[in-house]
């Protein structure tokens, strides 16, 4: 069972306290009505499906209830870092030496 650091509680706690909430850094467009169909499809349905460092959202649902972001490696299933919602994507390579942003099928 994974241990997850909640950036709001400041505690590292068992996975069962948390709920996964999809890919991170997909912001709802400011004015959805002005979006073209193609743009809206991109926002609604398209996800990166990364093999490697994946930025994703979690909710500390059985704790403080806050949504936050995490970088998790989808091969090792290890959390590299977690950070508060709204904060920018951290530089994972500088943080851990692991190259981020490798997509499925690429090396």
């Amino acid at each position, binding site marked *: 069972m*994974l241990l997850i650091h909640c950036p709001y509680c400041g505690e590292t706690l068992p996975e069962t306290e948390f709920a996964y*909430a999809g890919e991170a850094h997909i912001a709802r467009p400011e004015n959805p*009505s002005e979006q073209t169909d193609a743009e809206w499809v991109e926002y609604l349905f398209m996800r990166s499906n990364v093999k490697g460092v994946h930025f994703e959202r979690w*909710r500390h*649902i059985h704790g403080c209830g806050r949504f936050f972001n995490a970088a998790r490696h989808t091969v*090792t299933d290890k959390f590299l870092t977690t950070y508060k*919602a*709204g904060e920018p994507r951290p530089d994972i390579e500088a943080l851990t030496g692991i190259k981020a942003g490798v997509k499925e099928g690429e090396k």
Partner: protein
Amino acid sequence: MSTYRIQGRGRVNHSEPVYFTFDGKTYTGLRGDTVASALLANGVHLMGRSFKYHRPRGAVSAGSDEPNALLGTRRGKGQFEPNTRATLQEVRGNLETTSQNKLPSLKFDIGAINDASYMMFSAGFYYKTFMWPKSFWDKVYEPFIRAAAGLGVAPSEEDPDDYAARYVHIDLLVVGGGVAGIMAALTGARAGAKVVLVDETAEMGGALLSEPAVTIGGMAGWDWLAAALEELESLGVQVMTRTTAIGYYHENMVGLVQRVSDHLDHVPEGAPRERLWRVRAKQVVLAQGALEKPLVFDGNDRPGVMLASAAQTYLNRYGVKVGSRAVVVTTHDSAWYAAFDLAEAGISVAAIADIRPKIDAELVSKARALGIEVLPSHTVITTRGRLRVKSVSVAPVSNGAVGTSRVIPCDVVLMSGGWTPSLHLFSHTQGKLKWDAEAQVYLPDVKTEEVEIAGAGRGLWGYGAALEDGVVAGRTAVKALGLRATARAPGVGVDRPGTGIMVKDLPTNGDPGKARAFVDFQNDVTAKDIRLAVREGMRSIEHVKRYTTNGMATDQGKMSNMNGLMIASDALGKAPPQVGLTTFRPPYTPTTFGALANYVRGHQFEVTRKTAIDSWAEENGAVFEPVSQWRRAWYFPKDGEDMAAAVARECAATRKSVGIFDASTLGKIEVVGPDAVEFMNRTYTNPWTKLAPGRTRYGLLLGEDGYIRDDGVIGRLSQDRFHVTTTTGGAARVLNMMEDYLQTEWPDLKVWLTSTTEQWATVAVNGPNARKVLEPLVEGLDISNEAFPHMSIAECTVAGLPARLFRLSFTGELGFEINVPASKGRVLWEALMKSGAEYDICPYGTETMHVLRAEKGYIIVGQDTDGTVTPGDAGLDWALGKKKPDFIGMRGLKRPDLVASGRRQLVGLLTSDPKVKLEEGAQIVLDPNQPKPMKMVGWVTSSYYSATLGRTIAMALIEGGFDKMNDTVYIPMPDKTITAKITGTVFYDPEGEKVKL
């Protein structure tokens, strides 16, 4: 006492006999025996029949790697376990054991006909034989396979035993109670770490328990062991025997299963049978040792053929001679030492056949001094004997050529093909292994967790090396914990380190195609099967494994994987690491469902949520139905009524006078704050700005895709406070969605969300007399139609209780919903029942609620919608705040597919025969005479008998349904085709006058 027990020898208690049964016959063992050691002490080697060929089998090992000696064990009713390892289960009073997979008896088994026809049952046999005809699959082939193959039978009665579970957080977990593990635990404990040490057997000590001659720290080995355990205890180390580490999970979480009471004559009151431990350790040391490999030769599975180390364990740990005359066949020095121990204990060892041409001179001279014939460069050709080995044929090998064989009579054959480091748990962590070409073993390489491996698991051999390595591993862990280690390894005397080589199947002068040389004893896989798999195109060890089932039995290939790999690599002409290694997965040994489920069974499997009024419903004969986690009153039958009669009565009473309904399960969310109205405008489809405090509105919630997610009546209590209701099942989902948007998309909004579902008890009173029932109980509010019109909300006092009163209707009648603090729900209910008595107030359940709402065409999200229904599809376009700049789903509703024509739309259906009730989910077609498969244009979503209308009614989603009013559609059923007419969805009071009374 039997002739096979040596008085006073071993760690069993010779003064405490224990009686148990095996296949109905009573046997005597000693306290401390395993079932296997006790049976062997009685001269019993035949303990089971094999999986596929029904060959007679006996114990081949003395530990958890045992593939053959699997028994059914029973204590009492329901307390039965199949496939228990006789080598691990301790004897106890009240223990019944039975052999498995035999018909009619263990000694005479007609299933053994499979053995005679073994050529037919080769690798891939199932794939090749049971291809056709298809109709034979479930009628002929499967019953045949199921009857012919298999081991234990699953228990049929409910298990009455208790199973427990615990969490523990510690500094250091040491898995394996051999000398390396004990030393690692001592190193940690002396440095002040919080340590847990576990071992799967009944006693700590590991291999040391089988080697009493070793001296450690100047003491006899067993004295050192006792002193070490005493020290561990004094340092507060939790030492857990009979505890198997079953799996190694992320972040150093290790699952342990402790067998708490299986070894006890009587289970103490309240004691669990097993306890699951979830250990979160900062550091882990794996000291699981190594597993001895069998040799692969014809007849290597006959009862009496066993691992050399097993014979040594039975002798030294249990005081049992496994036979009277032994022949040892080996590729490793360790079996020579086993032979010496046996010979010195008075067992005749006829010969040691070693495949190696060169053997340590000291071993050879010691063997000769003990009268053992030494046969270097020798292979085994075969064994003979029906239910027990009677002789073994050996032959010299010279430059790959096998010479003339000779037969040596014996009653046990002790084999050793060298040792495999036990790295199962390490593999669970995705730790990488590396092939050591010299030792020809896989060793641990790249680690993914905070773990050290110590002792034989790293390929180290001998007690000195293991103790030393235990200290090294312990020190590394201690240092990582930020502590200082002081422990040093004690010196060792009479250490017997040795070396050996790894071989594939042994060379033979017989026909290798006919050899019954077993690799996987439990799944009956032979060397021939593996070579056949390679010939038939299997290249990866993963394919060989699946084709032959090698290593796929409950022992997870502990004995067979390496032999299988050596043979497959030989057949492929590749080095073992090029062929690969199958991945070990949890659990390490078979684990009971009881241990995994532990407390989470029966009524604790899932919570049953009950409302404050549930007790009244129960006392008044309600029939209940589950709705998500809630238990809800379904209907209230009177005097032997069936459901249809009760529902018809409840509906009529409500429409005629007044009905009362427990609506407490409705989800409730309090939305509060200066920006509450803006938040509501952005989330729900409706416009909220102009909704005045004291008024309510039907709210609709979509996803960004434009599909309906939830609905409910929402009341505005003040400028900054909304009382939102959701569907019963959707409450948590809606709150999660609201929190998501509030926290991550609109964190600037000053809004607070609180779940109040369980704070309020909600009672709905509906019917033309509803006001008359309620009015006498209300204080501080005029609830006349003029002062408190339809869709109002107010705070007042009802029956002396603080209340939030809604005027709304989910029945089409005049209706009120009264919310009071949950703890007072029953008080309110009973007050209403009393007040309503003169109007024959009728309690009704969820079924009547469904019928009444369907008569009005009110939808139920999740029943009349399925996640692909838009407000337009459901006829709810009026609920969209089209002038708002945005709400969740507004853009989604403009997607091309959602504005296209031909969408399925929610309509009413009236069957041409008013008595025929459609089946919910039934498919609808326009032309019943078209060829199959017919074009289906939709399905029935809701269907009821309406007592009010005296006929059946239904709702359905039908393609282009709004433009098909009054059209006839067809619903083909298995026995007939039903015709129905498309209508609107409102069947009762279409003008909506009744709610305005």
